[in-house]
């Protein structure tokens, strides 16, 4: 059984006089113990909201609704009460945020912030806690940890802050670590240090890691399984190598061919995906990616595309996936799960004042497409 099983997770934000936004729309994925799972997508695709929902960190307001299930080791994290959630959070599941400066308390020394976790979950106090905290900082590669404990976040550099945050996250040896864009705010050389550190931690302690990022390069080097998100849904799930070697969903294909690569030659034209993330179709009306898709067929519009599971253990949500050479289309299909969508709400990225998208439209890509 998987360590974390997210099933049909959905998050909607409703505000008075504005239409309801469905930021996460039936996201399902699972994480095995010790596995590194990637959630990849562009801004607004729902990847961060997914992680916040799992951690129970979304604001508790009447307009915010979370549906579905997130089963961690037999308990549904969305159903439990606050007290038990606080017990689990930090001890069994920990999170690393994107911006270390804004997720550390600026007026509290690092040491107190690290020992706080130890006191809460491991019942350590005084000298013992301080000693353990120093060891943690040492483990994540912060030099001179004893002195660092007395310092405030602003006295550390960006990379060191992120290390301190990681130290807090791994303090209780959690079984699951969720990292939301852990290196986006950092420089490349520091990013390499932090990624290496995360890899080491995962390897040594058997912690499972959910890696949320927009950087396909980071994913390629780290993740075992990758979920590609678009418009609040997982559009493709595959193991690392098959995904990069043979992407099936046109969006994954488009993403991979639009990223400039360090090892490609100068002057090769990139193949961008036309349009922008805002040109999308609400899922109830068809495939959200259809307006920008190069492989669009008539069947894309009308109803949400089915989730296709293949024999080699991957899945995609597409009517007309990119073909695999030497395989007749449809040959590898194992099972088809019909796509469902609640009518009336739209993904987060859609332009606020759009006229409702017309089914069968073909005009959308024209706006931003030039090259």
């Amino acid at each position: 059984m998987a360590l974390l099983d997210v099933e049909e997770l959905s998050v909607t934000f409703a505000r008075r006089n504005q239409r309801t936004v469905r930021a996460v729309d039936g996201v399902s994925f699972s994480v095995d113990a010790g596995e590194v799972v990637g959630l990849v997508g562009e801004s607004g695709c729902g990847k961060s909201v997914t992680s916040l929902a799992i951690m129970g960190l979304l604001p508790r307001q009447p307009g915010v609704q979370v549906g579905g299930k997130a089963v961690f080791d037999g308990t549904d994290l969305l159903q439990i009460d606050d007290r038990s959630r606080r017990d689990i959070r930090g001890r069994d599941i920990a999170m690393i945020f994107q911006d270390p400066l804004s997720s550390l308390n600026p007026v509290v020394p690092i040491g107190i912030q690290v020992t706080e976790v130890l006191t809460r979950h491991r019942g350590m106090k005084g000298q013992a806690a301080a000693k353990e905290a120093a060891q943690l900082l040492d483990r994540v590669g912060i030099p001179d940890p004893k002195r660092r404990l007395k310092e405030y976040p602003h006295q550390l550099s960006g990379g060191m802050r992120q290390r301190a945050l990681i130290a807090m996250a791994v303090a209780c040896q959690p079984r699951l670590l969720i990292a939301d864009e852990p290196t986006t705010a950092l420089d490349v050389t520091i990013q390499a240090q932090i990624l290496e550190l995360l890899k080491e931690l995962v390897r040594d302690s058997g912690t499972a890691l959910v890696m949320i990022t927009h950087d396909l390069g980071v994913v390629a080097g780290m993740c075992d399984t990758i979920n590609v998100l678009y418009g609040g849904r997982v559009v493709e799930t595959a193991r690392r190598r098959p995904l990069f070697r043979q992407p099936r969903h046109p969006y994954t294909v488009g993403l991979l061919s639009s990223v400039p690569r360090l090892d490609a030659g100068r002057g090769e034209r990139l193949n961008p995906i036309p349009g922008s993330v805002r040109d999308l179709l609400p899922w109830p009306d068809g495939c959200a990616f259809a307006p920008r898709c190069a492989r669009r067929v008539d069947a894309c519009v009308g109803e949400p595309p089915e989730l296709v599971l293949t024999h080699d253990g991957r899945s995609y949500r597409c009517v007309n996936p990119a073909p695999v050479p030497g395989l007749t289309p449809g040959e590898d299909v194992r099972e088809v799960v019909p796509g469902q969508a609640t009518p009336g709400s739209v993904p987060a990225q859609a332009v606020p004042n759009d006229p409702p998208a017309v089914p069968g439209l073909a005009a959308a890509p024209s706006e931003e497409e030039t090259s």
Partner: protein
Amino acid sequence: MSERSRGDVLVDVRDLKVHFPIKRGVLFDRTVGHVKAVDGVDLRIARGETYGLVGESGCGKSTLGRALLQLTPPTSGEVSFDGVELTTLAPNKLRAMRRRMQMIFQDPMSSLDPRQNVESILTEGLQTHGIGGDRDGRRKIISETLDQVGLPRWALSCYPHEFSGGQRQRIGIARALVLGPELIVADEPVSALDVSIQAQVVNLLDELQDNLGLTYLVIAHDLAVVRHISDTVGVMYLGALVEEAPSDRLYTEPLHPYTRALMSAVPVPDPDVEDRRERILLAGDLPSPANPPPGCRFHTRCPWAQPTRCADERPELREIGGSRVACHWAEQIASGELRPHQVSVELVRPAGEGEEPSVVSAPTEPGSFV
């Protein structure tokens, strides 16, 4: 590249320095030191070429770009643009020169006035420089520019917030382009955009260069983007160029240890490449530009640092087979004679002890990663 030897140089920067004073005190501003954001940079950009400038945050690449356009007054050094010395040019003449050199900013939302519509944004520059004669003339120029950057005509009456990020960046490019410049300094032109939109803007910049013969100085922290669009790439570290080479050569044969580390740190979206790669992990962080290490500025983090020369002699850029490298031991490292060794992390403070970090670091651009 070959243009350099032909001598059709559009921009010639010699020993450019930009130092920002560090002030302390409330009533009397005492200058207690200087942040050497740019400290002695020489570079030449040939006409029609793209020069890419890469480096980590705080290395002075943005300041260099701004100083080149005289948006930040240089402390010393010379900048000549098409044979005209800009640092000593009278303000009114400099303003006229600005027509020929334009800038594209990182974050289109904060660099476009939210209360101006697109037409007004584009006309402002034309009016200032008296281009296009009457209103109809200007309209014509504007609509041609819109076609070039791939925006629809109806965009003219819209305001920046009505566009998506990629379209906004196109407006930013149109604003620079409408004056018919020869040089465009693009400071992180795509880093605020989504992956799928980045490629559109990169292609657009490429296309415009082909059609209009523009010269670019592209400043970015993303090595893959820079390599993709540049002919020549300069790598900056703590205010100085450490290596300059044709972009293919820089990738296949990085000579400076910092360039090697930088190249090996960039993730490539290909699992096979990622698994094969050997990372050169640098220890620690960028030292403070207010108090740069003596000698070679990289020696505190360099895995190849030697006991002699590195710590006390600042290396000059020298020519090695088509590249310019500022390293005493570049040949020995390239031939494998010197092996990398472990570097212990030296502690770097973002500021002087207990001081606010913002005081010491160079003025940050909106949206830059600090």
